[in-house]
Every structure is written in C-alpha cells, then in structure tokens.
C-alpha cells in the first residue's frame, strides 16, 4: 500500500492539476478571513471552504491515471486497492492543506467571541477548528468519491453533480460538515468553544461507506 500511495502522490504532485483548487481555496480564504476577526468565525469559514477542495482533489486523483495505466496497477494490486489509494491520497492532501490553513487562521485571528466581548482561548479554538476541518475534508472526499468514476463517468454530469453535492453538504442541516461549521459559528456567538467530535465521527463513517461503494464498483463498471 505504501508503494501505491507514493505512486498516487507523485502522480498528483507532478500533474500540477492540484494548482487550481489550491489557488481557489487561497483566494476564498483571502477574501473571507482577515487578521483580527473572531477566531471561531474564521475557523468555520476555513473548514467550510475545504469541503469542495477535497472533492475536487478526489476528482483529480481518480482521473489522473489514463485507463490503460490504471489497468496495469489494478492487475498488480486489485482494482479496489488501486482506487482506495487514489482516494486516500486526495483525503490526506486535503487534510494537510486544511491543517495548515487552520493553524495560520488560528494565529492571525483575534481570540474573542463574535461580539468581541468574551475571550475565546486560542488553543482549544484551534483544536475545535481542526476537528471541523477534518470533518469537512472527510465529507468532501465522500462527495468526490460518489461523483467521480466509477459512479459517474461523463464529465458533463460528474462536475455539476460534484459542485451541487459539495454545496449541499455544507448548507443542508443534518450534514456532519454543516453541524461542525455551524457549531463553530454558534460557539463564536456565545463565546464557548465547541468540540465537534460527533460531526467528525459521522463524517468518518459516511466517508468510509462512500469509499467502500466506490472501490467495490471499480471492477464492475466499464473503464
């Protein structure tokens, strides 16, 4: 599996297709997050913005390899494992980017509540933000896995489906990502730091299920 992960990582890094989602995320944060704003609000923004980035990264990783090259790897390790490696690399990169963004945002934001009256300790706020970010990275991976090959093959359908699903995953009540982000925002209003463990666990479960479905289908759909 290590060899597969390093192969998929090299494919992603060298393809340079990771650049657009990164630039978009940086622009999104540049517009929405400024130094001196309440820390929990900014962290909620950071987490929510990561979800479509993770979905996009999954799409890149899954479509990076030409079908014939994918067949060679699939014969060697099994098509399910080959697909799993692509999803894991996308998730890891999204989680890494989210972690860096969370640390930076935690450091440049003001450790206060939304009304600037209550002090919000920086470290617990950062930890809460990290959990929410991871929940969004996970759910974004699930969205990407369910809206790319082998589930959706034509780009014309897959990309709008991915964008819509990513949007819904952030805004629809009941989604773990929505729960994690709104937890941070309401926490900012009340001046208390939430601990979004439940949304994180729910996101992990959903992502595991989505990954299992996608990996199981790889050998059943046409290339």
């Amino acid at each position: 599996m290590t060899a597969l992960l390093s192969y998929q990582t090299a494919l992603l890094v060298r393809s340079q297709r990771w650049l657009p989602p990164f630039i978009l995320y940086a622009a999104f944060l540049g517009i929405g997050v400024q130094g001196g704003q309440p820390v929990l609000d900014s962290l909620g923004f950071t987490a929510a913005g990561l979800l479509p980035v993770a979905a996009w990264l999954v799409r890149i990783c899954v479509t990076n390899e030409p079908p014939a090259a994918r067949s060679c790897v699939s014969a060697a390790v099994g098509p399910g494992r080959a697909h799993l490696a692509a999803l894991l690399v996308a998730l890891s990169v999204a989680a890494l980017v989210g972690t860096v963004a969370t640390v930076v945002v935690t450091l440049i934001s003001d450790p206060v509540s939304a009304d600037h009256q209550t002090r919000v300790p920086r470290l617990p706020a950062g930890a809460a933000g990290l959990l929410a970010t991871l929940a969004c990275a996970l759910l974004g991976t699930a969205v990407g896995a369910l809206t790319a090959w082998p589930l959706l093959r034509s780009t014309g359908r897959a990309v709008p489906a991915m964008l819509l699903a990513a949007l819904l995953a952030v805004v629809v009540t009941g989604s773990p990502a929505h729960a994690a982000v709104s937890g941070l925002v309401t926490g900012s209003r009340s001046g208390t730091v939430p601990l979004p463990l439940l949304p994180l666990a729910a996101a992990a479960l959903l992502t595991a299920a989505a990954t299992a479905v996608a990996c199981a289908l790889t050998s059943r759909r046409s290339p």
Partner: protein
Amino acid sequence: MIPMQRDLRLDNVGRRYGLRGPWVLRGVHLTVTPGDLIRVEGPNGTGKSTLLRLVAGIDTPTEGRITGRPRTAYVPERFPTALPFTALGYLTHLGKVHGLSRPAAARAALEWLDRFGAAAHARTPMAQLSKGSSQKVAVVQALLAEPELLVLDEAWTGLDAAAREELERAVAERTADGTAVVFVDHDPSRLAGAPDATYTVRDAGLDLRAERAAAQPVGPLMTVVVQGTRGAQLPADAARTVISAEEPEPGTHRVTLPASHSDVLLRALLTARPPWHVVSVSQDPPATEPRPTPDTESRR
C-alpha cells in the same frame, strides 16, 4: 521464484456491462496452471479483451466465480504516454507497486529496458516517448517483478521486430520459470507451436480450439544438436515445447523447436547435471506453405 500455489480458475464466468447490457461473455470455464502458455483467439469485438481483463483481475465477473488469484501483471494493447514521469521513474514506481524494493525496481527496470533496446529512453519523459517506446515501457512494467501470471493483450502491437522477438523469448523464459501466460495477438505466427492450449472466443463463449499437440508451428524454428551421456533423455520441462526430436546416433539428439524457446532449452541443457554438450544451433527457414488448419471450429 515461488510458483503460484493454486490454479487460477474461472467457473461459469459471465460478464456484461451495465445492468441490462448484452452478455459479452457467458458460461466461461478456464483453468490456468503455473507455467501454462495460453493463446486466446477470436474476431475483433468478440470479448477477448474482456476475457483478459477478467483473467487479470481488473474486472469482476457479473456472474460466476474466479478463484486462486496469483501475483498478476497486465500489458494493455495501447499504453498511454500521458503520465508525468520519466520512463525509469514510472517503472520504479510500478516495480514498487509490484512488491520490489526501490533499488531492486530501478535495477530491474534498467535491465529490462536494455533488453528491449530502450535503455536510451530511461530518462526520457513519458510524454516524449514514441508509441513503440511507450509500449516497451508497458511490457517492462509487467515483466520486471517476475509475476506468477502474465496477461498480454496484443502486447506485441507497436513493438519493433527486435523487441517482438525479445518479448517472445521473455515469455518463453517466464513460462519455463513457472509463470502462466495468457495472451491475445492478431499475428497467427506469434509464439507458434508453443502454446499449451489455444482458445477461441465465439458467441460470447470460450471454445478450446487446440491442445498443444495439435498445434501446427508456422513461426521460425531452431534446430539444436546436442550430445548427452549415453541413454540420457532430454529434461522433461525443457522438452515441453519441442516439435520434433530424433536420436540419429546414441547420445546425440537433434531437436527442432520454436525459435522463441531455443534459449530456454539450451539453458536447461547447459545447466543440467551432468551438462549436455551443444554441437550446433541453426535457424530453420520459416515455413512458407500455408499451415493446414488444424480444426474447423471457426468454419463450422
């Protein structure tokens, strides 16, 4: 290397794409034993590639079962160059995926590229490789980790003449080492006389067309004259692909076999205990008359 423990078995295997698509293959039974060389034939679009994808484990059968998966390598018909690596970089990654360490993968990759006359392209970005060179890369990725099952889907297409012969010799070597090889090729003289079995894909089914004994060689042949100790018999595993053998005088054997397999026979004879003495090796002119069709499966 350790030969695979069990046979790969396809039991009543069927495959179709989509929920209501037509059956591409149905009711296929196939057993692949270590060291087997199996040829699959059939007109275009009859499901040869689908069968090979099932054998390689890339696709799962819609019905039926496949058991006994060995360590598998696959060569597709057309290999893409749209990979952001050099040839050596890609092959090192694939060697690791096949289970080699990084240095072993790089070493094997260079060695095999050299055998196929592509050593000069080792540091060339894949995107700049010609079609033939990228096909060599596809072949090398499959051979470098000494798989237990090698699946070749028109792997010879696009290779130059020297590389085509080298791939035939590599297949002969691998099967002699216990690797099972399943291949499709449009050229009827490809490894002629060597396959243990030839199957035809027809009407979504698989027919056994010919066992080894019935196959008529049409490719280039080699005649090897060797001397052994009095009464010595040719080693059984090396003699598998022999087309004709005679003993003009006691201890001297004149053996005719497909050119692709002559190295394997010579290696076996020279490393036998006691070793044989090689008197002469000569290439026969390839048969020019059309081969008598060994059976009429396709004409019925």
